[in-house]
């Protein structure tokens, strides 16, 4: 049980608990804020898994822009954000069952597949920005270009959708 494992387990626990709170809180704002905690914990996990660039990108983009955008949207739409604003539909019991079953099943599959594997500390290749940049712009350059087109389309879509009037 190396130190990395212990910290990793703690950080994982934090992520899971905060995710649980995101899902069960009855106020949207609380849910959004707990999401921030979850994303932070996951970023930490990335660091522990020696994926530095991904961790920072996670923190920078995911927590920085996505959650902020989420909060802006909530405020702009003046939706009721008080207690009881994020209730549950009739579908909740069925949803619990399905979600639970999926989690257990995935876990079992993972366990069956990779139960005993161990990440070998010394072999780990740290995911520095240089290596990542090299990998993306040499092997993954096509998906990268496609991704830019997708982002552009999403941008235009969002603008068109939210334009007011003269429908």
């Amino acid at each position, binding site marked *: 049980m190396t130190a990395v494992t212990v910290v990793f387990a703690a950080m994982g626990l934090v992520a899971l608990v905060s995710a649980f709170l995101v899902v069960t809180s009855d106020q949207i704002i609380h849910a959004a804020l707990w*999401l921030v905690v979850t994303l932070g914990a996951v970023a930490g996990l990335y660091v522990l898994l020696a994926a530095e660039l991904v961790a920072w990108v996670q923190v920078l983009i995911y927590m920085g822009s996505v959650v902020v955008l989420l909060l802006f949207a909530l405020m702009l739409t003046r939706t009721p954000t008080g207690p009881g604003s994020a209730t549950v*539909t009739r579908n909740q019991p069925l949803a619990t069952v399905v979600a639970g079953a999926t989690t257990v099943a995935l876990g079992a599959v993972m366990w069956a597949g990779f139960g005993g594997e161990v990440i070998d500390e010394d072999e780990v290749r740290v995911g520095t920005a240089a290596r990542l940049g090299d990998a*993306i712009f040499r092997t993954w350059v096509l998906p990268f270009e496609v991704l830019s087109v997708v982002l552009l389309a999403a*941008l235009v879509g969002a603008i068109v959708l*939210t334009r007011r009037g003269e429908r």
Partner: protein
Amino acid sequence: MPLMLPLVVSCGLFGLGLYAVLARRHAVMVLLGIELMLNAASLNLVAFDTWWADTVHTGQSLTLFVIALAAAEIGLGLAIVLALFRAVGNSDVDGQEPPTSLLAEGGDEL
């Protein structure tokens, strides 16, 4: 460090995300659920990338793409929620009442 750890965490996140999508009424909460599921997936990718010690860092590159896509997706998602809210006055996922039965309106019974 046992590979199972990140996998367990990602499964947990995925389950919770799925629960949120299936059970929450408010559209934004559904989007949050989707975010959690995406994170679970990218955590998994990174875990395998590290375990595999991939020279080309497939896992981590894909995680970057996932994050980019997640951003685009949340942008659009919120635009839709905004439009929905302006049109209907609430953005509940189960707002519409079920369509009336086609056979109700008399005549032509067998």
